[in-house]
């Protein structure tokens, strides 16, 4: 890689070559074990959280490389990547069919042939099937002229329209299938084109392919071909939020079929999936019909695992770049600041025997030194901004469980460092540059992004919700800052959990916060210890905006529904009451956590 190239640039995984993917990809399937395993799975996460990269890695070319295998049939599964771009399938013309019987049938056919084309395109582009003897080509030709041909006929495709391949060369037959399904897709679009301006019905005379009667049997037969793996075929549908509602319901109907031993559906969303109802209005449920993973929630509660993943990702990128340094060396801390914090830690350890609050001296040092340092910078001179958000570990915490939020600012930092390096290789990013860019990102997220969201949702009902969300985030950020600079025993707080039941209005605002990335949702043991309650975690990306300490594990506070309502409606009054020690309640067993905290600790004391 050229030194001029930015090692942190974010590329669309679809375009990355297998060798590069395998080189860059850090195996996260320990955290998301359902993804490579058989079964239908929904994978939720904001843009940039690594969903597409996971899918790309599952494709056969990457799997062959990473397993160091040469034979496709030795793989445990065959994964087909199916990106759903915005207007590929969600054509405006389809609205003409709404509330008509043809709606479901034609949408299902459209979705089916779209996926079928991708299946054969995958065999062409990603499978790398070696066929020197021509056996595989003949096997495919036999399949195409036999069972496949019957399926097509059953779907209503006239024989004259399906001239079968005249040769048994594997690549020619695969290409024949691609063109066939591309043509079928084109047939739907042409029908829709004619429907564009009609208010009356229009006959559709083309074939109709569905999941159970076409795609599933086709894939089952395909699986049985000698060059294919014995395991299931995975259909990796990326960004399924881009399907229209009818297509979404159809896909849910496929999930409902529980055919995962032959075909497992892996569906990614950007937290905006339209419905979990099927075409016949039945509800699909987890875990009966599918498993579900929310990347942000997993990483919000598994900070240590996330940190390791990011370190490995950055290490690989730096290695490819030839930087010859570790992530921590490349993103150094602000030495003067860290030295001052270490002195404060030493002071806490020294006075622990007489004044200590924690179980161990080092607990107090860890818990109070950095908040004390931040507090020491605030005050009359308004010097809190002197605190530098720098150093690899802080940057990882500040990315709040989404790799894109590490890589994008890192990319900006690199570009700036390169522009001032005088043509020399960039070996590290100055802490001042890190701090400036990370603060800028936080401000953009809190101010610019909020402005955009408000601008994009101008209908009174939505606009009101965004205003309430903005209030809530300001209230929580402000309150957590007040706690940080207070003399409370637990000062590093990022979360609230409900001590009673949240009402619908409050939940709507909180859910909107989750959808827009300002909050993560989790659950935690309730105050009484009799069950679990909802917990909402403020995104650490906002730490610089509210002058919070993003590092380490953070505590939570119990709140009532009424208190959150006050935060939503009167954020300043809420913060003032927090300053007076009102509204927030400590968890029942307040203990400090360290990296080896047990699961029980997580449940009852703190989110990580």
């Amino acid at each position: 890689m050229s030194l001029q190239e930015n090692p942190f640039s974010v590329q669309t995984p679809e375009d990355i070559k297998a060798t590069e993917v395998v080189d860059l990809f850090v195996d996260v399937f320990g955290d998301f074990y359902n993804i490579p395993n058989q079964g239908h799975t929904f994978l939720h996460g904001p843009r940039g959280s690594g969903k597409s990269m996971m899918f790309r890695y599952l494709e056969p070319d990457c799997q062959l490389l990473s397993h160091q295998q040469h034979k496709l049939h030795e793989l445990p599964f065959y994964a087909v990547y199916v990106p759903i771009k915005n207007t590929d399938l969600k054509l405006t013309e389809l609205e003409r069919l709404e509330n008509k019987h043809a709606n479901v049938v034609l949408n299902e056919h459209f979705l089916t042939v779209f996926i079928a084309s991708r299946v054969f395109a995958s065999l062409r582009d990603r499978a790398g099937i070696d066929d020197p003897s021509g056996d595989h080509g003949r096997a495919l030709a036999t399949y195409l002229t036999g069972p496949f041909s019957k399926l097509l006929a059953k779907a209503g495709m006239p024989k004259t329209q399906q001239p079968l391949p005249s040769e048994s060369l594997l690549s020619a037959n695969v290409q024949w299938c691609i063109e066939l399904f591309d043509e079928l897709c084109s047939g739907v679009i042409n029908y829709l084109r004619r429907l564009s301006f009609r208010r009356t019905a229009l006959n559709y005379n083309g074939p109709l392919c569905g999941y159970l009667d076409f795609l599933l049997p086709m894939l089952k037969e395909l699986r049985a071909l000698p060059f294919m793996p014995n395991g299931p075929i995975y259909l990796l549908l990326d960004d399924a939020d881009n399907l229209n509602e009818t297509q979404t319901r159809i896909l849910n109907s496929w999930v409902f079929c529980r055919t995962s031993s032959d075909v497992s559906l892996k569906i990614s969303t950007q937290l905006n999936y339209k419905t979990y109802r099927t075409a016949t209005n039945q509800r699909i449920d987890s875990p009966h019909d599918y498993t579900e993973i929310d990347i942000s929630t997993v990483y919000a509660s598994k900070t240590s695992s996330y940190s390791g993943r990011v370190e490995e990702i950055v290490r690989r990128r730096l290695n490819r770049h030839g930087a010859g340094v570790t992530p921590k060396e490349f993103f150094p801390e602000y030495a003067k600041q860290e030295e001052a914090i270490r002195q404060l830690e030493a002071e806490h350890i020294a006075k622990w025997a007489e004044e200590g609050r924690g179980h161990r001296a080092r607990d107090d040092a860890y818990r109070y030194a950095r908040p004390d340092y931040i507090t020491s910078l605030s005050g009359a001179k308004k010097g809190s901004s002197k605190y530098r958000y720098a150093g690899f570990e802080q940057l990882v915490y500040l990315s709040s469980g989404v790799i894109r939020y590490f890589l994008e600012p890192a990319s900006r930092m690199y570009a700036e460092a390169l522009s001032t390096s005088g043509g020399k290789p960039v070996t590290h990013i100055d802490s001042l540059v890190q701090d400036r860019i990370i603060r800028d990102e936080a401000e953009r997220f809190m101010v610019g992004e909020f402005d955009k969201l408000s601008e994009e949702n101008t209908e009174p009902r939505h606009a009101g919700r965004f205003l309430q969300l903005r209030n809530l985030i300001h209230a929580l950020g402000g309150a957590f800052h007040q706690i940080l600079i207070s003399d409370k025993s637990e000062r590093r707080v990022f979360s609230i959990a409900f001590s009673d039941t949240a009402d619908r209005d409050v939940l709507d605002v909180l859910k909107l916060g989750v959808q827009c990335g300002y909050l993560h949702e989790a659950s935690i043991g309730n105050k009484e210890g009799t069950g679990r309650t909802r917990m909402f975690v403020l995104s650490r990306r906002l730490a610089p905006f509210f002058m919070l300490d993003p590092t380490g594990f953070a505590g939570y506070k119990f709140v009532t529904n009424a208190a959150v309502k006050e935060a939503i409606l009167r954020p300043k009054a809420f913060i003032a009451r927090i300053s007076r020690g009102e509204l927030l309640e400590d968890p029942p067993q307040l203990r400090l956590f360290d990296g080896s905290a047990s699961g029980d600790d997580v449940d009852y004391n703190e989110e990580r």
Partner: protein
Amino acid sequence: MSLDPMRLTDLAGAIDREFDVFICSASYEERCKSVPNAIADHRRIGKRLVCYNHKSSSIVTGNAKYLLGRLGANVNGVPLDKVTPLITADNLQRALSHAGGDDHDLSYLVDITTFTHEALLILLRLLQARVKRSPVVLAYAPAAEYSVGLAPEQKWLSKGIADIRSVLGYPGDSRPSRKSHLIVLVGFEGDRAERLIDEYQPHVISLGFGQAGTSTAPQHHQVNRLAFGQLATKVSKYSEFEFSCVDSAAVEVAIATQVSKFPECNVVVAPMNTKLSTVGVAGAAFRNDQIQLCYASASQYNVEGYSRPGDTCVLTTLTPEYWKAPGLSRTGNVAKPDDPAAPGT
């Protein structure tokens, strides 16, 4: 008729023939009145259609009322819907049928100044099915200033994207096995273009920039250049091309050239520059069915200060060649009037 601007006061005199139908669109911009005011007393114009977004602000409704009054007795309002393009299409279609366009080869004068890009594209598709030999003349009244009173770097026309959708009548011919190519004709709104690119995540990005000397006014070129520059810094790899902001035929060539550079891609074009360039984009799509057009509807418009009317106007005639769709029969794939006798699915 030429692309050289003429004074609005000379417009009526420059229209040297009869038109069966005049079509315009009310908006919150004052300049929606410029062309209608200039030709209102022209006696050789038959029916007049005033389009308006029926769920818009009171300013739009007020301007629609003004235009309906100003254009005399033979006038009809055509309610459009900025959220549901099917309503827009159906109402436009009804109005054109009512004007006699289904049965006769009518001539049209269309003031494209303040249509939304989407409504304009739908109207052009509907006209394509109706126009035979008679001419269609487009009138466009450039603004003297956009985003009135703000410095170039602060100018804005709209903010946010409420929805991204394919334009009705331009579904393209997407082949799932192919890569995607997004062509953006960048206008003033770099932010919206960036958001569009982020949503599509295409394999190939083409960013089109208005040629110097083709802007409807020189000061607009500077703002366009600024928006393009800002966008270009945020997009890592793209193919740059230039297009005329006023000559639809030249735009069509520019689009066709850009499409041909990446022949194995599905093509989506987002026209975000002038209405005259959007007419050229429609022409490119008429000639190439594989081009899908998309529209990113804005969440918020600069209603208060979108533009200040100018005192000039551009006229352009769409020749019969413009409407041609090679390979498609007029009664086949292009939009055609409803056939009530067609059996249901």
